[in-house]
Protein backbone atom coordinates (compact mmCIF):
# COMPACT_ATOMS: atom_id res chain seq x y z
CA UNK A 1 0.00 0.00 0.00
CA UNK A 2 1.42 3.42 -0.89
CA UNK A 3 1.15 6.68 1.06
CA UNK A 4 -1.79 7.89 -0.99
CA UNK A 5 -3.77 4.77 -0.17
CA UNK A 6 -2.94 5.14 3.49
CA UNK A 7 -4.27 8.70 3.45
CA UNK A 8 -7.38 7.66 1.60
CA UNK A 9 -8.05 4.93 4.13
CA UNK A 10 -7.47 7.35 6.97
CA UNK A 11 -9.90 9.76 5.36
CA UNK A 12 -12.40 6.94 4.95
CA UNK A 13 -12.01 6.18 8.66
CA UNK A 14 -12.64 9.84 9.52
CA UNK A 15 -15.67 9.81 7.22
CA UNK A 16 -16.98 6.75 9.00
CA UNK A 17 -16.37 8.31 12.43
CA UNK A 18 -18.10 11.51 11.34
CA UNK A 19 -21.05 9.59 10.01
CA UNK A 20 -21.43 7.67 13.23
CA UNK A 21 -21.05 10.81 15.33
CA UNK A 22 -23.64 12.54 13.14
CA UNK A 23 -26.06 9.65 13.53
CA UNK A 24 -25.54 9.68 17.27
CA UNK A 25 -26.53 13.35 17.36
CA UNK A 26 -29.24 13.16 14.70
CA UNK A 27 -30.57 9.64 14.36
CA UNK A 28 -32.70 8.23 11.57
CA UNK A 29 -35.93 9.52 13.07
CA UNK A 30 -35.05 13.02 11.82
CA UNK A 31 -34.80 11.83 8.21
CA UNK A 32 -38.13 10.08 8.63
CA UNK A 33 -39.60 13.32 9.98
CA UNK A 34 -38.58 15.14 6.77
CA UNK A 35 -40.05 12.34 4.69
CA UNK A 36 -43.31 12.46 6.65
CA UNK A 37 -42.83 8.82 7.62
CA UNK A 38 -43.22 9.16 11.38
CA UNK A 39 -46.44 8.11 13.01
CA UNK A 40 -48.26 10.77 15.00
CA UNK A 41 -47.02 9.16 18.22
CA UNK A 42 -43.42 9.03 17.04
CA UNK A 43 -43.52 12.64 15.91
CA UNK A 44 -45.02 13.79 19.19
CA UNK A 45 -42.32 11.93 21.10
CA UNK A 46 -39.56 13.42 18.95
CA UNK A 47 -41.00 16.87 19.33
CA UNK A 48 -41.19 16.53 23.09
CA UNK A 49 -37.61 15.30 23.15
CA UNK A 50 -36.50 18.17 20.93
CA UNK A 51 -38.17 20.76 23.13
CA UNK A 52 -35.77 20.04 25.97
CA UNK A 53 -32.77 21.72 24.33
CA UNK A 54 -31.90 24.54 21.97
CA UNK A 55 -30.14 22.09 19.70
CA UNK A 56 -33.24 19.88 19.60
CA UNK A 57 -35.51 22.79 18.78
CA UNK A 58 -33.21 23.81 15.91
CA UNK A 59 -33.21 20.24 14.64
CA UNK A 60 -36.99 20.10 14.72
CA UNK A 61 -37.23 23.30 12.72
CA UNK A 62 -34.61 22.09 10.23
CA UNK A 63 -36.16 18.68 9.61
CA UNK A 64 -39.86 19.53 9.88
CA UNK A 65 -41.31 18.73 6.41
CA UNK A 66 -41.11 21.64 4.01
CA UNK A 67 -44.49 20.66 2.65
CA UNK A 68 -46.47 21.13 -0.54
CA UNK A 69 -46.39 24.92 -0.51
CA UNK A 70 -42.60 24.87 -0.56
CA UNK A 71 -42.65 22.29 -3.32
CA UNK A 72 -45.03 24.46 -5.33
CA UNK A 73 -42.62 27.37 -4.97
CA UNK A 74 -39.76 25.20 -6.17
CA UNK A 75 -41.75 24.07 -9.20
CA UNK A 76 -42.56 27.68 -9.95
CA UNK A 77 -38.93 28.72 -9.58
CA UNK A 78 -37.88 25.96 -11.96
CA UNK A 79 -40.53 27.00 -14.44
CA UNK A 80 -39.38 30.60 -14.18
CA UNK A 81 -35.81 29.58 -14.74
CA UNK A 82 -36.78 27.47 -17.70
CA UNK A 83 -38.57 30.49 -19.12
CA UNK A 84 -35.51 32.67 -18.56
CA UNK A 85 -36.80 34.40 -15.45
CA UNK A 86 -34.16 33.81 -12.83
CA UNK A 87 -35.30 35.74 -9.77
CA UNK A 88 -34.81 33.71 -6.62
CA UNK A 89 -38.11 32.96 -4.95
CA UNK A 90 -37.61 34.95 -1.77
CA UNK A 91 -36.67 38.13 -3.57
CA UNK A 92 -39.38 37.51 -6.13
CA UNK A 93 -41.93 37.13 -3.38
CA UNK A 94 -40.97 40.47 -1.92
CA UNK A 95 -40.80 42.28 -5.24
CA UNK A 96 -44.09 40.98 -6.45
CA UNK A 97 -45.97 42.05 -3.38
CA UNK A 98 -48.80 43.43 -5.48
CA UNK A 99 -49.19 40.10 -7.17
CA UNK A 100 -49.46 38.14 -3.99
CA UNK A 101 -53.17 37.61 -4.42
CA UNK A 102 -52.52 35.97 -7.77
CA UNK A 103 -49.61 33.98 -6.40
CA UNK A 104 -51.76 32.81 -3.52
CA UNK A 105 -54.45 31.71 -5.93
CA UNK A 106 -51.90 29.81 -7.98
CA UNK A 107 -50.44 28.31 -4.83
CA UNK A 108 -53.89 27.17 -3.80
CA UNK A 109 -54.24 25.31 -7.06
CA UNK A 110 -50.80 23.79 -6.63
CA UNK A 111 -51.51 22.85 -3.05
CA UNK A 112 -54.50 20.97 -4.35
CA UNK A 113 -52.27 19.22 -6.85
CA UNK A 114 -49.76 18.38 -4.17
CA UNK A 115 -52.23 17.05 -1.68
CA UNK A 116 -51.50 13.45 -1.08
CA UNK A 117 -53.95 11.04 -2.67
CA UNK A 118 -54.75 9.84 0.81
CA UNK A 119 -56.39 13.18 1.56
CA UNK A 120 -59.14 12.46 -0.98
CA UNK A 121 -62.00 9.98 -0.63
CA UNK A 122 -61.52 6.58 -2.25
CA UNK A 123 -62.63 6.21 -5.83
CA UNK A 124 -65.68 4.16 -6.72
CA UNK A 125 -65.44 1.43 -9.33
CA UNK A 126 -65.29 2.48 -12.96
CA UNK A 127 -66.55 0.87 -16.15
CA UNK A 128 -65.52 1.46 -19.73
CA UNK A 129 -68.21 2.38 -22.21
CA UNK A 130 -66.94 2.23 -25.80
CA UNK A 131 -68.69 3.22 -28.97
CA UNK A 132 -67.70 3.78 -32.55
CA UNK A 133 -66.15 1.85 -35.37
CA UNK A 134 -67.76 -0.25 -38.05
CA UNK A 135 -70.04 -2.95 -36.70
CA UNK A 136 -70.08 -6.37 -38.32
CA UNK A 137 -73.14 -7.68 -40.14
CA UNK A 138 -73.94 -9.90 -37.19
CA UNK A 139 -74.96 -6.89 -35.27
CA UNK A 140 -73.54 -4.77 -32.55
CA UNK A 141 -71.60 -6.49 -29.79
CA UNK A 142 -72.43 -5.10 -26.39
CA UNK A 143 -69.81 -2.91 -24.81
CA UNK A 144 -67.31 -3.20 -27.65
CA UNK A 145 -65.89 -1.12 -30.42
CA UNK A 146 -66.60 -2.02 -34.00
CA UNK A 147 -63.62 -2.29 -36.27
CA UNK A 148 -61.92 1.06 -36.17
CA UNK A 149 -61.09 2.36 -39.61
CA UNK A 150 -59.87 5.79 -40.68
CA UNK A 151 -62.74 8.20 -40.32
CA UNK A 152 -64.56 6.16 -37.65
CA UNK A 153 -65.79 7.94 -34.59
CA UNK A 154 -64.04 6.83 -31.40
CA UNK A 155 -65.71 7.34 -28.05
CA UNK A 156 -64.50 5.86 -24.81
CA UNK A 157 -66.19 6.87 -21.58
CA UNK A 158 -64.78 6.07 -18.14
CA UNK A 159 -67.90 5.97 -16.04
CA UNK A 160 -67.76 5.90 -12.20
CA UNK A 161 -70.39 3.94 -10.30
CA UNK A 162 -71.10 7.02 -8.19
CA UNK A 163 -70.19 10.68 -8.52
CA UNK A 164 -66.57 11.41 -7.64
CA UNK A 165 -65.40 14.36 -5.61
CA UNK A 166 -61.94 15.74 -6.21
CA UNK A 167 -59.75 15.54 -9.28
CA UNK A 168 -59.28 12.40 -11.35
CA UNK A 169 -57.27 11.82 -14.47
CA UNK A 170 -56.44 8.94 -16.76
CA UNK A 171 -53.56 7.48 -18.68
CA UNK A 172 -53.91 5.13 -21.62
CA UNK A 173 -51.76 2.28 -22.83
CA UNK A 174 -51.80 -0.14 -25.75
CA UNK A 175 -50.82 -3.76 -25.30
CA UNK A 176 -50.01 -6.36 -27.90
CA UNK A 177 -47.82 -9.44 -27.85
CA UNK A 178 -46.69 -8.85 -24.31
CA UNK A 179 -45.61 -5.29 -25.07
CA UNK A 180 -47.28 -2.46 -23.19
CA UNK A 181 -46.69 1.10 -24.27
CA UNK A 182 -48.19 4.49 -23.50
CA UNK A 183 -50.91 5.64 -25.84
CA UNK A 184 -50.77 9.41 -26.06
CA UNK A 185 -54.16 11.08 -26.32
CA UNK A 186 -54.19 14.72 -27.44
CA UNK A 187 -55.59 17.07 -24.84
CA UNK A 188 -58.21 18.19 -27.34
CA UNK A 189 -59.60 14.66 -27.43
CA UNK A 190 -59.99 14.38 -23.65
CA UNK A 191 -63.08 15.57 -21.86
CA UNK A 192 -64.01 15.64 -18.19
CA UNK A 193 -67.45 16.18 -16.73
CA UNK A 194 -66.23 17.31 -13.34
CA UNK A 195 -67.97 14.52 -11.41
CA UNK A 196 -65.46 11.88 -12.28
CA UNK A 197 -66.60 10.98 -15.78
CA UNK A 198 -63.76 11.06 -18.31
CA UNK A 199 -64.10 10.68 -22.03
CA UNK A 200 -61.90 10.28 -25.06
CA UNK A 201 -63.55 11.43 -28.26
CA UNK A 202 -62.13 11.81 -31.71
CA UNK A 203 -61.88 10.53 -35.22
CA UNK A 204 -59.73 7.56 -36.07
CA UNK A 205 -56.88 8.77 -38.20
CA UNK A 206 -57.35 12.29 -36.83
CA UNK A 207 -56.95 12.81 -33.10
CA UNK A 208 -57.13 9.07 -32.55
CA UNK A 209 -54.06 7.29 -33.87
CA UNK A 210 -53.72 3.56 -33.31
CA UNK A 211 -51.52 1.42 -35.55
CA UNK A 212 -53.44 -1.27 -37.49
CA UNK A 213 -54.02 -4.59 -35.80
CA UNK A 214 -55.56 -6.16 -32.74
CA UNK A 215 -54.85 -4.36 -29.49
CA UNK A 216 -55.80 -4.31 -25.86
CA UNK A 217 -56.38 -0.76 -24.70
CA UNK A 218 -55.77 -0.11 -21.01
CA UNK A 219 -57.32 2.93 -19.38
CA UNK A 220 -55.92 3.73 -15.95
CA UNK A 221 -58.00 6.18 -13.96
CA UNK A 222 -57.10 7.59 -10.59
CA UNK A 223 -56.07 10.54 -8.52
CA UNK A 224 -53.46 12.93 -9.91
CA UNK A 225 -49.88 11.88 -9.10
CA UNK A 226 -50.99 8.37 -8.30
CA UNK A 227 -51.18 6.90 -11.79
CA UNK A 228 -48.59 4.28 -12.70
CA UNK A 229 -46.41 4.73 -15.73
CA UNK A 230 -45.91 1.96 -18.28
CA UNK A 231 -43.17 0.18 -16.35
CA UNK A 232 -45.11 0.25 -13.10
CA UNK A 233 -48.33 -0.85 -14.77
CA UNK A 234 -46.51 -3.74 -16.44
CA UNK A 235 -45.25 -4.81 -13.04
CA UNK A 236 -48.71 -4.56 -11.49
CA UNK A 237 -50.31 -6.51 -14.31
CA UNK A 238 -47.64 -9.18 -14.08
CA UNK A 239 -48.78 -9.68 -10.49
CA UNK A 240 -52.40 -9.75 -11.57
CA UNK A 241 -53.06 -6.39 -9.91
CA UNK A 242 -55.42 -4.08 -11.76
CA UNK A 243 -56.24 -1.68 -8.98
CA UNK A 244 -54.73 0.09 -6.02
CA UNK A 245 -56.30 2.44 -3.49
CA UNK A 246 -55.90 5.45 -5.77
CA UNK A 247 -56.19 4.03 -9.26
CA UNK A 248 -57.71 1.23 -11.29
CA UNK A 249 -56.90 -0.18 -14.69
CA UNK A 250 -59.60 -1.27 -17.12
CA UNK A 251 -59.10 -2.87 -20.48
CA UNK A 252 -60.92 -3.33 -23.74
CA UNK A 253 -59.93 -5.13 -26.89
CA UNK A 254 -60.13 -3.35 -30.21
CA UNK A 255 -59.20 -3.84 -33.83
CA UNK A 256 -57.97 -1.17 -36.19
CA UNK A 257 -57.48 -1.28 -39.95
Amino acid at each position, binding site marked *: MNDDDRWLRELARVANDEQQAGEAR*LDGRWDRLSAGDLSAEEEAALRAEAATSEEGRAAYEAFRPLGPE*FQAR*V*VQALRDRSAGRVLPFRRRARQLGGWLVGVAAAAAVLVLVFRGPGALPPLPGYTLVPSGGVQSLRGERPNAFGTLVPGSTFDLVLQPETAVSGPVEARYFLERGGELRPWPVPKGAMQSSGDGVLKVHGMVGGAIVIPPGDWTLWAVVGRPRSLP*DAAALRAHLARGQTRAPDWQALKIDLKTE
Partner: protein
Amino acid sequence: MERSDLHDIVERALAGDETALSRLVAVLTPVIQARVARSLLLWRTGAAAGRDVRQEVEDLTQEMFLLLFAEGGKVLRSWQPERGLTLLNFVGLVTERRTASILRTGRRNPWQDDPTLSEDLDRATPEEEGPEEIIASREQMKLLLRRLTEELSPLGRHLFDLLFLRELDQAEVVAQTSLSADAVYAWRSRLRRLVRRLLAETSEDR
Protein backbone atom coordinates in the same frame (compact mmCIF):
# COMPACT_ATOMS: atom_id res chain seq x y z
CA MET B 1 -40.71 3.54 -6.27
CA GLU B 2 -38.81 1.44 -8.74
CA ARG B 3 -35.62 2.66 -10.37
CA SER B 4 -37.14 2.52 -13.88
CA ASP B 5 -40.07 4.62 -12.68
CA LEU B 6 -37.75 7.26 -11.30
CA HIS B 7 -35.70 7.28 -14.47
CA ASP B 8 -38.89 7.78 -16.44
CA ILE B 9 -39.99 10.62 -14.17
CA VAL B 10 -36.60 12.33 -14.47
CA GLU B 11 -36.69 12.06 -18.25
CA ARG B 12 -40.21 13.41 -18.46
CA ALA B 13 -39.52 16.23 -15.99
CA LEU B 14 -36.48 17.30 -17.98
CA ALA B 15 -38.56 17.17 -21.15
CA GLY B 16 -40.98 19.68 -19.63
CA ASP B 17 -43.74 17.40 -18.38
CA GLU B 18 -45.23 19.45 -15.54
CA THR B 19 -46.83 16.51 -13.77
CA ALA B 20 -43.53 14.67 -13.75
CA LEU B 21 -41.72 17.80 -12.55
CA SER B 22 -44.09 18.17 -9.63
CA ARG B 23 -43.75 14.49 -8.81
CA LEU B 24 -39.96 14.66 -8.95
CA VAL B 25 -39.84 17.70 -6.68
CA ALA B 26 -42.12 15.89 -4.22
CA VAL B 27 -39.90 12.79 -4.27
CA LEU B 28 -36.60 14.65 -3.91
CA THR B 29 -37.55 17.31 -1.38
CA PRO B 30 -37.32 15.11 1.73
CA VAL B 31 -33.87 13.74 0.92
CA ILE B 32 -32.46 17.13 -0.04
CA GLN B 33 -33.98 18.76 3.03
CA ALA B 34 -32.63 16.06 5.34
CA ARG B 35 -29.08 16.24 3.91
CA VAL B 36 -29.08 20.04 4.03
CA ALA B 37 -30.43 20.05 7.58
CA ARG B 38 -27.89 17.49 8.73
CA SER B 39 -24.98 19.38 7.17
CA LEU B 40 -26.15 22.71 8.56
CA LEU B 41 -26.64 21.41 12.07
CA LEU B 42 -23.39 19.46 12.18
CA TRP B 43 -21.08 21.80 10.32
CA ARG B 44 -22.20 25.39 10.42
CA THR B 45 -20.08 27.68 12.50
CA GLY B 46 -19.47 31.37 13.09
CA ALA B 47 -22.00 33.81 11.64
CA ALA B 48 -23.84 31.04 9.83
CA ALA B 49 -24.69 29.39 13.14
CA GLY B 50 -26.72 32.43 14.17
CA ARG B 51 -29.05 32.45 11.20
CA ASP B 52 -32.62 31.17 11.15
CA VAL B 53 -32.07 27.48 10.50
CA ARG B 54 -35.51 26.93 8.95
CA GLN B 55 -34.92 29.72 6.45
CA GLU B 56 -31.45 28.40 5.69
CA VAL B 57 -32.85 24.93 5.05
CA GLU B 58 -35.49 26.33 2.70
CA ASP B 59 -33.00 28.48 0.81
CA LEU B 60 -30.42 25.75 0.42
CA THR B 61 -32.98 23.13 -0.55
CA GLN B 62 -34.31 25.39 -3.27
CA GLU B 63 -30.77 26.12 -4.43
CA MET B 64 -30.14 22.40 -4.77
CA PHE B 65 -33.13 22.07 -7.07
CA LEU B 66 -31.92 24.97 -9.17
CA LEU B 67 -28.51 23.34 -9.36
CA LEU B 68 -29.96 19.98 -10.39
CA PHE B 69 -31.96 21.56 -13.20
CA ALA B 70 -29.38 24.14 -14.34
CA GLU B 71 -28.29 24.05 -17.99
CA GLY B 72 -31.08 21.81 -19.11
CA GLY B 73 -30.70 19.49 -16.16
CA LYS B 74 -27.03 18.75 -16.75
CA VAL B 75 -26.48 17.49 -13.22
CA LEU B 76 -29.61 15.33 -13.14
CA ARG B 77 -28.75 13.90 -16.52
CA SER B 78 -25.40 12.76 -15.16
CA TRP B 79 -27.19 10.23 -12.91
CA GLN B 80 -26.40 6.75 -14.20
CA PRO B 81 -28.45 4.18 -12.27
CA GLU B 82 -26.35 1.33 -13.59
CA ARG B 83 -23.38 2.68 -11.59
CA GLY B 84 -25.03 1.54 -8.41
CA LEU B 85 -26.34 4.80 -6.98
CA THR B 86 -30.07 5.23 -6.59
CA LEU B 87 -31.48 8.60 -7.60
CA LEU B 88 -32.00 9.51 -3.97
CA ASN B 89 -28.43 8.61 -3.06
CA PHE B 90 -27.13 10.46 -6.08
CA VAL B 91 -29.07 13.59 -5.21
CA GLY B 92 -28.06 13.19 -1.57
CA LEU B 93 -24.38 13.17 -2.53
CA VAL B 94 -24.82 16.19 -4.82
CA THR B 95 -26.46 17.97 -1.90
CA GLU B 96 -23.70 17.07 0.54
CA ARG B 97 -21.06 18.21 -1.91
CA ARG B 98 -22.76 21.51 -2.60
CA THR B 99 -23.64 22.22 1.00
CA ALA B 100 -20.07 21.52 2.07
CA SER B 101 -18.83 24.00 -0.51
CA ILE B 102 -21.33 26.68 0.47
CA LEU B 103 -20.62 26.29 4.17
CA ARG B 104 -16.88 26.46 3.61
CA THR B 105 -16.73 29.29 1.09
CA GLY B 106 -19.92 31.22 1.85
CA ARG B 107 -20.72 31.34 -1.85
CA ARG B 108 -24.46 31.03 -2.30
CA ASN B 109 -25.33 31.82 -5.88
CA PRO B 110 -25.47 28.59 -7.85
CA TRP B 111 -25.45 30.45 -11.16
CA GLN B 112 -21.93 31.73 -10.59
CA ASP B 113 -20.48 28.27 -10.49
CA ASP B 114 -20.10 25.59 -13.06
CA PRO B 115 -22.74 23.13 -11.90
CA THR B 116 -21.24 20.19 -13.70
CA LEU B 117 -19.94 17.27 -11.77
CA SER B 118 -16.77 16.73 -13.68
CA GLU B 119 -15.10 13.44 -13.08
CA ASP B 120 -11.90 14.67 -14.63
CA LEU B 121 -9.66 15.05 -11.65
CA ASP B 122 -6.52 14.94 -13.73
CA ARG B 123 -5.28 18.31 -12.71
CA ALA B 124 -1.61 19.12 -12.43
CA THR B 125 -0.29 17.43 -9.33
CA PRO B 126 2.03 19.51 -7.19
CA GLU B 127 5.25 18.09 -5.89
CA GLU B 128 4.68 15.66 -3.09
CA GLU B 129 5.46 16.59 0.46
CA GLY B 130 5.59 14.27 3.38
CA PRO B 131 2.01 13.87 4.59
CA GLU B 132 3.03 13.54 8.21
CA GLU B 133 4.50 17.02 7.96
CA ILE B 134 1.38 18.43 6.45
CA ILE B 135 -1.42 17.17 8.60
CA ALA B 136 -1.16 16.37 12.23
CA SER B 137 -4.49 17.07 13.78
CA ARG B 138 -7.85 15.43 13.44
CA GLU B 139 -9.46 18.77 12.71
CA GLN B 140 -7.29 19.09 9.67
CA MET B 141 -8.28 15.60 8.61
CA LYS B 142 -11.91 16.66 8.85
CA LEU B 143 -11.14 19.69 6.74
CA LEU B 144 -9.41 17.48 4.21
CA LEU B 145 -12.42 15.17 4.13
CA ARG B 146 -14.71 18.11 3.52
CA ARG B 147 -12.52 19.25 0.63
CA LEU B 148 -12.60 15.73 -0.75
CA THR B 149 -16.39 15.74 -0.52
CA GLU B 150 -16.53 19.00 -2.43
CA GLU B 151 -14.22 17.78 -5.17
CA LEU B 152 -15.71 14.39 -5.86
CA SER B 153 -18.62 13.71 -8.16
CA PRO B 154 -21.32 11.42 -6.73
CA LEU B 155 -19.76 8.52 -8.62
CA GLY B 156 -16.32 9.44 -7.30
CA ARG B 157 -17.61 9.57 -3.75
CA HIS B 158 -19.34 6.24 -4.25
CA LEU B 159 -16.09 4.69 -5.43
CA PHE B 160 -14.19 6.24 -2.54
CA ASP B 161 -16.64 4.56 -0.16
CA LEU B 162 -16.43 1.21 -1.95
CA LEU B 163 -12.65 1.16 -2.30
CA PHE B 164 -11.44 2.74 0.92
CA LEU B 165 -14.28 2.65 3.43
CA ARG B 166 -15.71 -0.75 2.66
CA GLU B 167 -12.36 -1.89 1.24
CA LEU B 168 -13.96 -3.99 -1.48
CA ASP B 169 -11.66 -5.64 -3.95
CA GLN B 170 -11.59 -4.70 -7.61
CA ALA B 171 -13.96 -7.47 -8.72
CA GLU B 172 -16.58 -6.53 -6.14
CA VAL B 173 -16.42 -2.87 -7.16
CA VAL B 174 -16.79 -3.85 -10.80
CA ALA B 175 -19.83 -5.92 -9.91
CA GLN B 176 -21.44 -3.11 -7.93
CA THR B 177 -20.84 -0.29 -10.38
CA SER B 178 -20.89 -1.97 -13.81
CA LEU B 179 -17.65 -0.12 -14.52
CA SER B 180 -14.86 -1.98 -16.28
CA ALA B 181 -11.86 -3.13 -14.29
CA ASP B 182 -9.79 -0.53 -16.13
CA ALA B 183 -12.22 2.21 -15.18
CA VAL B 184 -12.11 1.20 -11.52
CA TYR B 185 -8.32 1.19 -11.67
CA ALA B 186 -8.40 4.66 -13.26
CA TRP B 187 -10.68 5.87 -10.46
CA ARG B 188 -8.31 4.55 -7.83
CA SER B 189 -5.52 6.50 -9.52
CA ARG B 190 -7.66 9.65 -9.67
CA LEU B 191 -8.45 9.38 -5.99
CA ARG B 192 -4.77 9.02 -5.19
CA ARG B 193 -3.90 12.07 -7.26
CA LEU B 194 -6.73 14.02 -5.67
CA VAL B 195 -5.66 13.30 -2.10
CA ARG B 196 -2.09 14.17 -3.03
CA ARG B 197 -3.23 17.51 -4.42
CA LEU B 198 -5.46 18.28 -1.45
CA LEU B 199 -2.65 17.47 0.93
CA ALA B 200 -0.38 19.84 -0.94
CA GLU B 201 -3.02 22.59 -0.98
CA THR B 202 -3.63 22.11 2.72
CA SER B 203 0.07 22.54 3.24
CA GLU B 204 0.05 25.78 1.24
CA ASP B 205 -2.88 27.09 3.29
CA ARG B 206 -1.08 26.65 6.58
